[in-house]
C-alpha cells in the first residue's frame, strides 16, 4: 500500500447555520484515483473547495505531503501542487487552446516579475503546455480560440490546464458533467491513463465511469462520510446501496 498524500482530520465547514461538511476524515494515497460519491447537496463540492483553499475550513486540519495547508490561499495551494478543475466550464474563452495551457503552465515561473523572465524558461513552459494538450488529444485545436470549441472539448481543455500546472494531486469536480456517451468514454480513458503519473480525486455522477476508474471510493451523505473503502467494497456495501444508490436511482428515473 502506497503512502498517504493528503489527509483531513475533523474537517468542518459551516455556512451560517448550515453544516456543509461535517467532521470529515478523508485520505488520499499516492497514485490512486479516489472518487467521491454522494447525492446532491452531500457536501462533495464543498469538500473539494476546502481542499483547494477556495475557502477556509471552519474547523479541522488538512495535511498535504505532511504539511498543514488549511487556511492558505487558493493560489498558494495551487502552486504547492494541488490542481483543480471546476464543475462549470472554466476556460478563458478569448484565449486559444494553447494559450490557456500556457497560462496554466507558467504559474511556476514565479510572481509578477516572473512574467518577464528568460526565454529559455519560457520555452520550457511552452513545451509543458503542448505536452498537456497532447495528453488530452487537443493538439490539433492548439490555435483555436477556446470559445470556438465544443463543450466537450472545453471540458477536456480544462483537464489539460490542470495538467499543465504540473500538479501532484488533481481535484476534478465532475469532469464529465454534461457530456455525451462517446465523450464520456473518451475522458474516462484519459483519466485512467493519468493515474500512472498523478493522484486523482474525482467527483462524478456517472456510476459506470466511477466504478471503472476509481481505486477507492468515499461516499458522503449530508456532509458526513458514510463509508470509505476500495471500489469493490463500496460496490458491495449494503449501507451505500440503501442510502445512496437507491436514492440515486430514484432521482435518475424520476
Amino acid at each position: 500500500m502506497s503512502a498517504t498524500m493528503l489527509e483531513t482530520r475533523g474537517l468542518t465547514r459551516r455556512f451560517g447555520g448550515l453544516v456543509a461538511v461535517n467532521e470529515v476524515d478523508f485520505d488520499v494515497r499516492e497514485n490512486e484515483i479516489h472518487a467521491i460519491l454522494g447525492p446532491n447537496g452531500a457536501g462533495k463540492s464543498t469538500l473539494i473547495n476546502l481542499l483547494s483553499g477556495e475557502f477556509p475550513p471552519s474547523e479541522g486540519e488538512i495535511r498535504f505531503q505532511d504539511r498543514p495547508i488549511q487556511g492558505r490561499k487558493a493560489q498558494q495551494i495551487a502552486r504547492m501542487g494541488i490542481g483543480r478543475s471546476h464543475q462549470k466550464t472554466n476556460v478563458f474563452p478569448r484565449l486559444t487552446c494553447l494559450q490557456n495551457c500556457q497560462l496554466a503552465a507558467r504559474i511556476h515561473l514565479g510572481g509578477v516579475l516572473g512574467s518577464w523572465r528568460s526565454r529559455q524558461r519560457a520555452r520550457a513552459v511552452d513545451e509543458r503546455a503542448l505536452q498537456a494538450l497532447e495528453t488530452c488529444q487537443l493538439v490539433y485545436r492548439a490555435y483555436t480560440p477556446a470559445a470556438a470549441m465544443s463543450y466537450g472539448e472545453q471540458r477536456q481543455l480544462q483537464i489539460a490546464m490542470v495538467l499543465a500546472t504540473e500538479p501532484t494531486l488533481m481535484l476534478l469536480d465532475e469532469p464529465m458533467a454534461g457530456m455525451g456517451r462517446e465523450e464520456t468514454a473518451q475522458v474516462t480513458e484519459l483519466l485512467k491513463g493519468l493515474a500512472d503519473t498523478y493522484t486523482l480525486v474525482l467527483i462524478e455522477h456517472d456510476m459506470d465511469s466511477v466504478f471503472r476508474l476509481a481505486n477507492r471510493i468515499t461516499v458522503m451523505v449530508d456532509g458526513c462520510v458514510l463509508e470509505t473503502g476500495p471500489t469493490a467494497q463500496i460496490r458491495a456495501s449494503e449501507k451505500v446501496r440503501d442510502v445512496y444508490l437507491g436514492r440515486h436511482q430514484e432521482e435518475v428515473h424520476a
Partner: protein
Amino acid sequence: MLHTYPKRVVVIMLVLTAIVAIFPLWGPAVFGAQSDFMMEKMTLMLILALFAMSLDLLVGIVGLVSLGHALFFGLGAYTLALASPAFSPAAIWWMAPLVMLVAALAALVVGFLVIRTRGIFFIMTTLAFGQMLYYFVSTSRHTGGTDGVFIMFRPSVEVGGAVLLDLDNPLTFFYVCLAMVVVGYLFLRWLTRSFFGQVLDGIHDNEHRMEALGYATGHYKLVAFVISGVMASLAGMLAAMQYGFANPSQLGWHTSGEVLMMLILGGMGTVFGPILGAFAYEILQHTFEHLTTHWPILMGITIILAVLILPRGIAGLIIDPPSRASLAKSSPLRWLKPGRAAPASEAVKPAAPAPREG
C-alpha cells in the same frame, strides 16, 4: 485571438498618426489664422489620449472600472506645480522621474487598499480616494486651494548646458506629446501581448479561475494599477505644462467620468481605441459648445447612445465593421418594433449547455 487586430487597424492608425504629425504642413491652409489654436487643441487631445490609454489598461484590459483615475492625472500636475522652483525652470531629468515616483507611491498605497475590493466596491473606493485627494488639495494651504496654482516655467530639456528641446515652443511641445502617445501606445501594446498581459486578460475573464490555477491575482492587478497610475501622472504633468496651471478640478470625479467617456467612445480594451476616443470626445465637445449653450444635453445624449448602440466604440467599428444584417438586428432598431421585449444579451461567454448544479 486577443489583441491582434485586422491589418486595416494598423493602416488607419498609421495614416491618422501621419496626418496629425504633418499638421504644421496642412494646418495653416485649412484653419488659416486659427491654425496655432488648432495645434494647441491637438496637443491637448494627445495629452488626453495618453490619459485615456492609461485608464484603458485598468478598465479595458484588467476589467477594473475606476472612477478615481483623475487622482493620478491631478497628482502629476500638482507634483510638477509644487516641485518647480519659483524663478527658474526645473530640469526634466529629475522632474519626470519625480512625478513618476510620486504617482507610483500613491498608486501603490491606494492600489493596496482598493485592489481588495471588487465590482461596485472598486468603483466606489476609487471614487472615494479621488475625492479625498480632491478635498485635500482644495483646502490645503500649500496647494493654492480651489484657485489652483501657476507653473511659471516649463521644465527644461538640457544636456550640459545645451538645450536639446525647447518645450516653450508650441511646435516642439506638440511633437513631444505626440511622441509620448506613440511611446505609450507601443508600450501598452507590448505589455498586453506579453505574458503579463495574458494574465491580465485571464483576470478580466475569470479571476476566480486564475486563482485556482495558482496566480496571486492581487499582485498582478496592483502592478497594472501602478503602471496605469504612472502613465496618467505623466499625462497630468504634460497637461499642467501646456497651460502652466494646476487646479483641483483636474482631480475631481467629473474628470474621471470624462475620461471614461473617452474610453467608451473610442472602444475599450483595444489600446488604440482610447486615442480615437480622446480625439472624438474633444471634437464633439468643441462642436456642441459652438452649437448651443445647452451643449451638456447633446453630450449626455451622445454618451447614452454610444452605450446603447456602440458599446465597443469607434474601435469596434474598425475591427469589425457592421454588416447590413447585423445592423438590422441591432437593439435600437429591434426596439422600434413593438412587442419584442427580449432583453439584448451581450454576454461574451461561449454558448454552452447549462451544466448541472449541485
